[in-house]
């Protein structure tokens, strides 16, 4: 009896574990808890793209991709547990969609030699590949986002923000505080006044913050929020009749679920984005044919095409392209995390390649290197049309102000190198 039970348990573990030859890309997702609505959509997009590659192409380079999910509930401790539980299953790369979890994993992945891919979140200065050998955060980071938002405002104001007042409403966490230094530098450069307005997580109650904004009457508000903070902030802005077109969120405050609870009042709200919106891309036809119609879509495919779903899918696209490049460089389809890192460092997603994938103009071109793990940082602005219930892209991809951003990245990454005793690579 005991032997039978043991055999059953072992069989169960073997069935749940990825086959050894497969490419393993764990999905550290969160479908429960206060941030579950966002996490679910992102995880669905991430899963569905790999399902598409498996179903349509038989995987990448003939290797099937396994995407075992582990629920983190956006909780840092659980995220680390998920990492520890999956790292010995042949995992190549992690994308935990949490700045808190990312900060905990940064030293771990360096030790365990795993790639950590944090598109649009995590530690901004990880862009410096000389210091952060295993971390990649292309196509854009928090500081790029802040700079692109300011560039948009410069365009709207004839190239000058002199004398303007801009408020930063931010999630009072490591994530929300990220853009402060960049915006302070940009304020000095362009002559605007910056007011910092923190919101305590989760942000269900923001009465004080929006009363302050009503009193101080800033010309623009930039928002770095996540989860319920976004919905409440947009509603509160509408309540005080703040002009919605003067409220600009970062990409994590730029999904349908952020604006829909406010209804028509959210019309005109803007957000920075580094990925396309809607389903008007050929790739979605393939998703329909190979994933959704055969009933293989994550959660039944109900979130296909939403902003957060598309961002999760885009993260999978970049990882898949890095795997492809790694296979090409290594001359083998069954790659190791070290080889994947090489693939990331030689990644070159051109406009033509994006069109081949079925996502023309969906994201900025990405060229990475040993020293540049963050790409060009280009992003664009989207605006919410409440009546049509859709986001519209209103600018082209814009480069951030590297004159301001790059020195900050150098400074912060060097500080980390000193603190962690890392000798930067010579490249």
């Amino acid at each position, binding site marked *: 009896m005991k032997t039978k039970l043991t055999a059953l348990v072992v069989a169960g573990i073997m069935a749940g574990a990825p086959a050894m030859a497969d490419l393993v890309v764990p999905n550290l997702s969160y*479908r*429960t*808890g*206060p*941030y*579950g*609505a966002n996490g*679910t959509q992102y995880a669905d997009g991430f899963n569905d793209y790999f399902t598409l590659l498996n179903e349509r192409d038989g995987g990448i380079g003939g290797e099937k991709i396994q995407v075992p999910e582990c629920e983190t509930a956006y909780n840092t401790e659980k995220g680390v547990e998920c990492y520890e539980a999956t790292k010995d299953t042949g995992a190549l790369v992690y994308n935990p969609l949490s700045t808190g979890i990312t900060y905990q994993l940064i030293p771990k992945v360096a030790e365990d030699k795993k790639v950590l891919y944090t598109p649009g979140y995590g530690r901004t200065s990880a862009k410096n590949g000389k210091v952060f050998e295993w971390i990649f955060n292309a196509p854009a980071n928090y500081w790029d986002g802040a700079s692109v938002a300011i560039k948009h405002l410069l365009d709207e104001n004839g190239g000058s923000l002199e004398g303007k007042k801009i408020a930063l409403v931010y999630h*009072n966490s490591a994530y929300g505080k990220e853009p402060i230094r960049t915006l302070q530098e940009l304020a000095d450069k362009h002559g605007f006044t910056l007011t*910092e*307005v*923190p*919101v*305590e997580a*989760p942000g*269900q*109650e923001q*009465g*004080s913050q929006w*009363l*302050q904004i*009503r*009193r101080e009457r800033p010309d623009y508000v930039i928002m770095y929020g996540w*989860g*319920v903070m976004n*919905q*409440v902030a947009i*509603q509160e802005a*509408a*309540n*005080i*009749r703040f002009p919605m077109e003067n409220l600009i969120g970062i990409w994590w405050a730029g999904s349908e*679920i952020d604006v*829909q*609870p406010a*209804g028509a*009042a959210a019309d005109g709200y803007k957000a920075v984005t580094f990925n396309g919106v809607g389903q008007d891309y050929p790739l979605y036809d393939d998703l329909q044919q190979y994933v959704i119609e055969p*009933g293989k879509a994550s*959660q*039944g495919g*109900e979130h296909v095409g939403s902003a957060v779903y598309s961002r999760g899918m885009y993260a999978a696209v970049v990882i898949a392209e890095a795997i492809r490049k790694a296979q090409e460089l290594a001359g083998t389809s069954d790659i190791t995390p070290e080889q994947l890192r090489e693939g990331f460092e030689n990644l070159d997603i051109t406009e033509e390649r994006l069109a081949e994938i079925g996502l023309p103009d969906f994201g900025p071109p990405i060229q990475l290197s040993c020293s540049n793990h963050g790409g060009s940082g280009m992003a664009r602005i989207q605006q919410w049309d409440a009546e049509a219930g859709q986001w519209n892209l209103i600018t082209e991809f814009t480069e951030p102000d590297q004159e301001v951003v790059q020195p900050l990245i150098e400074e912060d990454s060097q500080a980390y190198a000193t603190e962690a005793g890392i000798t930067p690579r010579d490249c």
Partner: protein
Amino acid sequence: MDQVIFGAEVFLNGLMTGVMYSLVALGFVLIFKASGVFNYAQGVLALFAALTLVGIQDGQVPFAHLINAAFGTSLHHFGWTVPSILAIALTVLVMVLLAFLIEKLVLQHLVGQEPIILFMATIGLAYFLEGLGDVMWGADIKTLDVGLPQGISDGIETLTAGWFGYGFFIDRLDIWATVIAALLVAALVAFSQYTKQGRAMRAVADDHQAALSVGISLRFIWVMVWSIAGFVALVAGIMWGTKSGVQFSLSLIALKALPVLMLGGFTSIPGAIVGGLIIGVGEKMFEFLIGPMVGGATETWFAYVLALVFLVFRPQGLFGERIIERV
């Protein structure tokens, strides 16, 4: 002078916010008063009630994901919508059914156990209900609209602009919340003072054994109290859900009620109201006056500090019953 006028606006908004906190705290008080149980699941009850309300309003198929996964269907909606009043009434029925099930499946088996055991049971209940809400109605954020107005009150803005040269901001939803909370408290007080069931509830609260000895059914009282707490949770869920959409972070509003309870006392309905007002005004004024000097975002921790200060002088809270331990 400007600071005084702004301060007055912050004060008024603090009172309004305090009422919203009180709505959540009331549910805790009702259950604690009648059974001595600190109901950890009260925030999740508000979430579950709001999810159920929106689900019924929108004609959503409950357990759709589960049904679709099991039978390969693609059910999502029945194709009808339900008027708000009817949806609220149906949600109240669901909450009564839930109260009955909680009593039958959980509380009945724990009669005579230590309060800490009952508290632990409510922790389990909170996680179970959160999961049930997710499976039943899905994790998406839902828009809640029962016809309550939102946005600045033009009348108050115009009036105060005439008086002070600066129009105050008062959210119309907060005004409605105040009116509804006042009606709710009046109804609860009248119920507990003037009805047979209300008196029975108070008798159970005073002494379980004595109440049982005079023929009061403990089971009936518990079902009744959890039903009323479910109704209060529904009201809180509607008010908070209208602001932010119905989503799983709604369960965290319970954290806002804790300092209110510490301050007002766990056994007093007026205490929940007064406690809420003090916390609301206290945290908003502190944020306004001191917040800018210490980097802001002071509200969450300040509410607890304020409650702790009160606890030092009145451990039972402002309106709580005096704690007498006889040797």
